[in-house]
């Protein structure tokens, strides 16, 4: 399983305490950007 698939679901989907509404900007590139930053951060952490 690619990390992106896991991150996409576990951090963007699922039930939250705050509520069931997630905001998506047009094209959802913002979410994608967030994930990419996170993937990079996780990558770095793993290499340390």
């Amino acid at each position, binding site marked *: 399983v690619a990390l992106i698939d896991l991150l996409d679901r576990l951090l*963007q989907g699922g039930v939250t305490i705050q509520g069931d509404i997630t905001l998506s900007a047009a094209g*959802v590139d913002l979410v994608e950007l967030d994930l990419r930053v996170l993937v990079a951060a996780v990558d770095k952490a793993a290499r340390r």
Partner: protein
Amino acid sequence: MTLLLYAIANGDHVVAPGISGLDDRPLHSVARGDLAAVVGECQAEPAATPDVLLRFEQAVEELMGDRTVLPARFGTVMADENAAAQLLISRRDQFADALQRVDGAVELGVRAGWPNGDSPPSRPSGPDAGAEYLLGRLDRRHRARRLADEVDAALGDLARESSCRILGRPESTVTAAYLVPRPQVEEFLARCRSLKDTIAGASLVCTGPWPPYSFVTREET
């Protein structure tokens, strides 16, 4: 010590012995009315490292087994069992509706794109350079849309619901999630395999079955 939420289930859901979560801590359910929250103890808010995320996912998949659960977003922590019970009471109708919505179904993910990269927009020069560049981008967007439509035409009828996003990355331009009733899963995967051969030049990755992460929240645009 706080509680990490793994899933919401129907009230009669009993966590099978041996199912453990992060740090191998056993999971248990807190029931209120016709719902149950499956939780496990954890130290503060867990860090989202790949290993930890995989462990969480594995636990939720075990909980899913042959039943219906609503997976929790990773990192949903609560102070204690009272807080878990309060969550079930205050959101009872939403959770019950969502459980019905995903009942007997799993999520399958499809990523499609152009593995060798899409043709990058050329760098035109001259007086119309800006317009040409934008038209190039628009064209790529249209190609991505057509790819998404092709994928959906081949798989959509097997799913109860679907969601699709068009992203900027050439290698996974289209990211779709399908809510598929369990009896249709094999057929869905078989069609994915044959779809790979029919879409010229495109790559297709099918993942799952996942707990229905993409179908428990309502999206507002």
